[in-house]
């Protein structure tokens, strides 16, 4: 277990990167606190796997350093870093039994056979494969194989960090919940530093203490699920997290009011004048549809998803989503929308502007 520090880190797959666009992973400074569970969240190609592979040592960064507990391991080989990693697609040693697969990382490090036997049994129980321990790994389902991969990742107790690269992609939905819960339990039990790469927000939000959201090779926000929900630091975070994502509406901001097409929206804070592209962001959860209050909208359709209703509407030419309680009747006369001022965020060039208490 260790604190992992990324110091001035960046990576490009090109030999001579010139502009910032050439970098798959843009410059980054970050401490992964010892014993925390992190999720690295982002869409495909945002650099999250690159970052993970740099931490595990499968990739050497083009610039910057990586430190484990203050010790520079930038050029140390994977084996020396003492980390465990589980990959997107199951990696099992086909010719070995499940038991041998689980014991492999321990045996390679010369662990005591008695301990190995015990530990493998324990992990076997945890992944729910105690009955299949003596089967050959070949011919098992993708589910079972991935469980073996997870088990092999967790079999060592003394690892510096446990890295997961979208490990549940090939797993059945009901099994996903189970395994995720087990991972979480394991984290509480052993307190490993865990980094979990995913593009699934539910997975990230349920697994992690802190979620690291990446966009276009850059870390745009690191925060608790609550922070990501309430105060997205970047419009991408607002849009990527939430279902549906945050409404982003072009506006002009003056003091504590935002003007959208001439009408104003009350803000919770006051803002100094801003340059560039200015937008306001409101989560559908904080928008209310009514007959009398707020600005006019044109309702396109209402989707009833069971626990609430999603209203898809048009708001001065841009799309807007509004969430209404399941019990609220929606009528044709409800063509106005109002926002909760405390939850309207202001963005300049996609980054959140803090503002001052009015």
């Amino acid at each position, binding site marked *: 277990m260790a604190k992992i520090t990324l110091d001035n880190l960046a990576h490009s797959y090109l030999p001579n990167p010139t502009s910032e666009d050439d970098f798959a992973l843009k410059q980054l400074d970050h401490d992964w606190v010892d014993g925390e569970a992190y999720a690295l969240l982002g869409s495909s190609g945002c650099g999250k796997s690159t970052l993970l592979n740099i931490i595990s040592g499968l990739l050497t960064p083009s610039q910057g350093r990586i430190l484990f507990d203050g010790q520079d391991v930038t050029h140390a080989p994977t084996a020396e870093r003492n980390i465990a990693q589980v990959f997107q697609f199951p990696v099992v040693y086909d010719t070995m039994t499940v038991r041998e697969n689980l014991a*492999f990382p321990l045996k390679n490090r010369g662990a005591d056979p008695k301990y190995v036997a015990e530990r493998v049994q324990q992990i076997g129980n945890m992944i729910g494969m105690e009955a299949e321990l003596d089967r050959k790994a070949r011919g098992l389902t993708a589910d079972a194989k991935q469980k073996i991969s997870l088990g092999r990742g967790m079999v060592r107790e003394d690892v510096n960090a446990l890295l997961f690269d979208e490990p549940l992609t090939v797993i059945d939905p009901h099994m996903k919940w189970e395994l995720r819960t087990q991972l979480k339990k394991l984290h509480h039990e052993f307190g490993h530093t865990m980094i979990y790469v995913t593009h699934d927000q539910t997975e990230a939000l349920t697994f992690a203490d802190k979620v690291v959201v990446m966009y276009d090779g850059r870390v745009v926000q690191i925060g608790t699920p609550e922070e990501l929900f309430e105060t997205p630091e970047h419009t991408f975070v607002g849009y990527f997290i939430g279902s549906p994502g945050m409404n982003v509406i072009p506006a002009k901001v003056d003091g504590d009011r935002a003007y959208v097409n001439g009408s104003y929206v009350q803000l919770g804070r006051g803002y100094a004048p801003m340059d560039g592209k200015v937008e306001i962001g409101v989560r559908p959860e904080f928008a209310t549809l009514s007959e009398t209050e707020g600005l006019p909208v044109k309702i396109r359709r209402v989707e009833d998803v069971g626990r609430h209703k999603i209203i898809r509407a048009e708001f001065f030419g841009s799309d807007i989503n509004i969430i209404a309680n399941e019990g609220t009747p929606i009528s044709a006369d409800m063509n106005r929308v109002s926002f909760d001022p405390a939850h309207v965020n202001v963005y300049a060039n996609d980054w959140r502007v803090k503002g001052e208490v009015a």
Partner: protein
Amino acid sequence: MEKTVNQKAWFLVLPVLILVAFSAVIPLMTVVNYAFQDTFGNNQFFWAGLDWFDELLHSDRMWDALGRQIVFSAIILAIEIPLGIFVALNMPKKGFWASFCLVLMSLPLLIPWNVVGTIWQIFGRVDIGLLGYTLDKLGISYNYTQDFYAAWITVIVMDVWHWTSLVALLAYAGLQSIPDAYYQAAKIDQASRWKVFRYIELPKMMGVLMIAILLRFMDSFMIYTEPFVVTGGGPGNATTFLSIDLVKMALGQFDLGPAAAFSLMYFLVILLISWVFYTVMTNLDKRES
């Protein structure tokens, strides 16, 4: 689902049947014809029953050739398979040098067999051949036309030169299909180089290796052209393998009856061994999945 029965479907198979009949069955039947009869020319045939088979099974000549053939194939497999794997493991995975190696490896496979024989026949000559001349100057006695071991070594080295590429290319294809994640996982599990080979590369190559072994076995068991050009089966009968012996018998001595019987047995032996291979391979596959 209800199966439709329609016997007209047989007509669709007919073209293939005719093709196979003319290309394989009818020519083979001519051989069968010769194997059970005797002829003294003029297209007159006399029933000989199993006489030719009986004669062959009691002649040292065929057993000796078979013995040489088995030893030859065994040596060829024992060298070419591990060597091919070794070469494949050390070939670059991508980029210019990967393509370069692939082309280089394919070259021996593109050369006609009798040319391969001629190349080595000249290469090994003491008077004008680079290899023979060099060895001679180094004081090593080497003459494949007179020395038993020199002849065998020449024929074996020639076959290794000619065909190891095939094994290497097949093994290389097998290696290329292994996802990177396997090697990364092995690094993380701190597996040694040997364990990576033993538990990742070898199992993943097993399928293509089986094909390589089968191909190399069949080809080496039927080898004719190259040793014929180099040694002509000599010195004495030292490198007279089954095919060479068969041709000597059929065309050299014009003993068509025994040669036909020989051909049939030869054919059956190859068929039998290939069938055993095939069964073992499919059983391995079944057991694995």
